[in-house]
């Protein structure tokens, strides 16, 4: 792959520059893990305090949409990993299409999430706007749905940022790709995979509890 003419003076070589970019991305991912980690800590605390309410709240989520969305995200991660793997001047068109494909899957995820949100609104499950839930578990179920909406909304914002990154890289990597573009794509791919990993855990915590008992 062609090299750009120069690299910044703090690096001794182009591989050094690329390695530093990767390390920087992992530092950023660590801060993101702690952001979602705080949310998940709160989830475990309240699930421990209100186990039956959390199982009940979980049963009111749409496991079909949740499962489809998980498959959609895993597939988009596969497409992005594929694009990183084959990135070269000879494959620019395919790389661009793979990234566009992953972005479309990301948008499909957001669209399905929107359908899910509107259904939950219709069922009066949105705390602070229109929450109506009878019985003794109401307070705990409300806590579950507060976690659900905060966590999935923050995750959706990450998805939108990722879609923007992938589409930007699909555009710029079409014109004479260099090692710099490959490094940029690799960093964006790490971000996209991380957002996928976050969803894997959100899926297990939001959709799966309480299914075996009703």
């Amino acid at each position, binding site marked *: 792959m062609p090299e750009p003419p120069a690299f910044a003076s703090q690096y001794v070589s182009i591989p050094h520059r690329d390695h530093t970019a990767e390390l920087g991305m992992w530092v950023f991912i660590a801060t993101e893990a702690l952001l979602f980690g705080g949310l998940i800590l709160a989830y*475990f605390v309240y699930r421990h305090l209100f186990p039956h309410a959390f199982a009940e709240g979980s049963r009111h989520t749409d496991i079909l949409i949740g499962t489809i969305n998980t498959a959609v995200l895993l597939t988009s991660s596969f497409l992005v990993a594929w694009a990183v793997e084959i990135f070269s001047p000879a494959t620019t068109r395919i790389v661009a299409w793979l990234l566009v494909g992953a972005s479309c899957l990301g948008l499909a995820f957001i669209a399905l999430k929107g359908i899910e949100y509107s259904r939950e609104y219709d069922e009066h499950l949105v705390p602070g706007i229109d929450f109506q839930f009878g019985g003794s578990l109401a307070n705990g179920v409300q806590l579950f749905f507060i976690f659900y909406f905060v966590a999935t909304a923050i995750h959706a914002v990450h998805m939108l940022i990722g879609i923007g990154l992938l589409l930007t890289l699909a555009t710029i990597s079409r014109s004479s790709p260099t090692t710099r573009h490959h490094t940029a794509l690799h960093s964006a791919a790490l971000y996209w995979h991380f957002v996928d990993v976050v969803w894997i855990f959100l899926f297990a915590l939001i959709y799966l509890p309480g299914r075996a008992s009703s």
Partner: protein
Amino acid sequence: MTQWRPPLSLIGTWLALLGLLALTVTIAYVPLGAGNAVVALSIGTVKAGLVAAIFMELRHRSGLTLVFAGAGLFWLGILLWLGLMDFMTRT
């Protein structure tokens, strides 16, 4: 247009992830009591491990990169461990 096919390792990982997804949803409907949560989070951890090792290419990395990637996991572990210790052991 040479070398555009995905490596078999990526295809295998993708199929394994979809298989684990089907498995975790199926087991969620099998009554295991407290075991359901353990199974769900264990399968989630395996899925996350596959994504990190293959898609995020950590299996090809060594030294400093693994330290940086592991550091995030380490601080997350401290956060969840010390954060939950009080609540989980309270009687």
